[in-house]
């Protein structure tokens, strides 16, 4: 079993807000390059890694009947903030993706200042009650009233920071008991780590299908990366790997899953039942515990976009439980990331040349 933890910690220590994924993309590209046959970037910045199918005896793929391909999508973008205005050196921000204002006061951030060689360290300030409207009481202070303090003088701030500059969470990754890791943006960089494990496993495996490893952009805002890369690559089937809700503080209903106890397989309109069935069979064969995750309408993953690319295709959702999603202290277990990677690799290896022809809707 490879030690993926240092890589995971490295990719949750850099920025990569939706639409501005380059810092994390560079690290992923570096890690994937030796693991794939071809690697390129899409027009929107998504990473496409192609691991070609193994030589097959007795089967000839032609232009008319090409080798089938499976796309595994893990989005690499992060939620965050963007500078909206600056008053007396205090930086007001708006959200990129769904940011919960409850977690912000006192949170360390990095301001990617366009007028500065170096990023600026900052903290999100909650103004005292006397500087807020009377009706704010003791409740959550809305994002529009919060501001970032960089510790610099107003003059220095206006020299370096501009409207539109990005602001990222800056909580340091920390290892915790039970093989857990906590930090920001584990949604969905933990899945990037799982896909990396899958690619490593595939080095020693034979697989008929071509494999597209996709680190997609802009999932948190528009699913823009998944829509466009799926159109460009035209895979036969596609699997989104993302986070699901872990049981934890305030979260214990059917939508939540224990961490460290395995991954979940989606059930719902975004999931093709035949892909679900194959995943389930493979998981049972290699004894990886899986739970069913019910997604009655949307999966809220790249699968929702990929399913609708071009003429449409069968999609699947595999999820890793995570506590405190979209906070700076997201928490996952390596005990779930490892099997997720292995399950992906075994699923890919299980795909026979005519798998797709065998799918018959009843």
């Amino acid at each position: 079993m490879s030690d993926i933890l240092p890589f995971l910690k490295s990719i949750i220590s850099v920025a990569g807000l939706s639409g501005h994924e380059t810092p994390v993309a560079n690290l992923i590209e570096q890690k994937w390059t030796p693991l794939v046959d071809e690697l390129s970037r899409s027009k929107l910045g998504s990473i496409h890694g192609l691991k070609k199918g193994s030589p097959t005896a007795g089967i000839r793929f032609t232009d008319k009947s090409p080798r089938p391909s499976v796309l595994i999508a893990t989005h690499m973008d992060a939620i965050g903030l963007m500078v909206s205005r600056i008053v007396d050196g205090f930086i007001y921000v708006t959200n990129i993706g769904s940011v919960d204002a409850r977690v912000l006061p006192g949170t360390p951030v990095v301001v990617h200042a366009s007028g500065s060689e170096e990023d600026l360290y900052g903290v999100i300030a909650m103004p005292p009650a006397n500087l807020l409207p009377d009706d704010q009481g003791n409740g959550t202070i809305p994002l529009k009233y919060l501001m970032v303090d960089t510790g610099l003088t107003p003059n220095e701030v206006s020299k370096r920071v501009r409207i539109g500059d990005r602001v990222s969470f800056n909580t340091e990754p920390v290892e915790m008991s039970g093989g857990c890791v906590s930090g920001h943006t584990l949604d969905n960089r933990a899945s990037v780590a799982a896909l990396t494990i899958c690619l490593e496993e595939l080095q020693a495996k034979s697989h008929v299908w071509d494999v597209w490893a996709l680190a997609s952009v802009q999932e948190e805002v528009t699913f823009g990366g998944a829509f466009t890369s799926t159109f460009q690559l035209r895979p036969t089937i596609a699997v989104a790997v993302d986070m699901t809700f872990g049981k934890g503080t305030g979260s214990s209903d059917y939508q939540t899953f224990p961490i460290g106890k395995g991954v979940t397989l989606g059930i719902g309109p975004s999931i093709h039942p035949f892909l679900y069935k194959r995943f389930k069979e493979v998981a049972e064969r290699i004894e990886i515990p899986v739970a069913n995750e019910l997604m009655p309408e949307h999966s809220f993953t790249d699968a929702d976009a990929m399913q609708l690319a071009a003429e449409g295709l069968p999609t699947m959702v595999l999820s890793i439980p995570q506590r405190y999603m979209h906070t700076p202290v997201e928490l996952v277990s390596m005990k779930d990331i490892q099997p997720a990677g292995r399950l992906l690799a075994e699923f890919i290896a299980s795909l026979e040349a005519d798998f797709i022809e065998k799918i018959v809707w009843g």
Partner: protein
Amino acid sequence: MLSIGQPQIKLLEKLCNAMSVSGDEGEVRRIVLEEVKPYADEVKVDALGSVLVHKKSVGRKSLRVLFDAHMDEVGFMIVHDDDEGFFQFETVGGIDARHLIGKQVIVGKNHVVGVIGAKPIHLTTAEERKNTSEVDALRIDLGPEGKANAGDRATFATKFKRVGPSIMAKAIDDRIGVATLIELLKNAPKNIELCLSFSVQEEIGLRGAKVAGYYFDPDLAIAVDSTPARDLPDFDGHENFTYNTKLGLGPAIYMANSSTVDDPRLVKFLEETAIKNKIPYQFRQPGGGGTNAGAIQQSRAGVPVVSVSVPHRYTHSPISVSRVEDWKNTLNLLHTALKQIDPSLVKSKL
């Protein structure tokens, strides 16, 4: 003039990163003892755990001046093990619960890192998100196999940072006062009987200073603390008239707060000292809040007191912000005042 260089910043960093929640101040106490011993004539740890330091004067009939800074910080106590690594906690001192969700904390003597999470935005209603959870509903999560004991203290996991003209750290209130007292001792003027109280339990009712004031029986006392700077913009663009103090304007001299009315002779003397020596200063806007001066003023037959604070933003939160220049000017105002004080001051007419 005394300067704030690398050694002083390093000491403040060590002090801020230590965990010293009211009632369990051991980590800061050990740092203070190590720092003061080479310079003090007497060092004593009292019954509550405060460090009491005495440095003799050279002449006779010198003024006996007490400086106080509190070693404790606001934080948490683990009160129940919910199993599977989740721990219920109570706050110690005044913490706004809105600063808790999404923060890393350190727990116990080994500083085990935990996190305070909450139900994710995806699973909550807009109505639920309008109110941050009460402390009762929050848990410290140490991971599925995490261990802690009821009674363990915890605090924010923030690490000290030097940023431009500022420092960002937890517990600047009042480690910056502690560091100031250590510098005053290292540079003690010979004309003064210097008494230092590194007090415990300030955040939960000025307890350590109450008995330290009795012990020293000083001629006058100065509480060196850190006070909020609420110098942020008002939401609708109006001028902010209720800022308490502002960063960058120098030491904040108190005139009155909810624990005491400061001795007018001492207030005037500090102001005159600042003007004469061209040290920037500001008056803290009179109003709420309290310092150990309130407790010391009422010890024995009464002690003339004044408070002087280094301003900081974001009080009792995971990360506060102060200016190094304000700290330097505070240290120099106090040091210069000590050197120039006339013993007759506290006998002059009120």
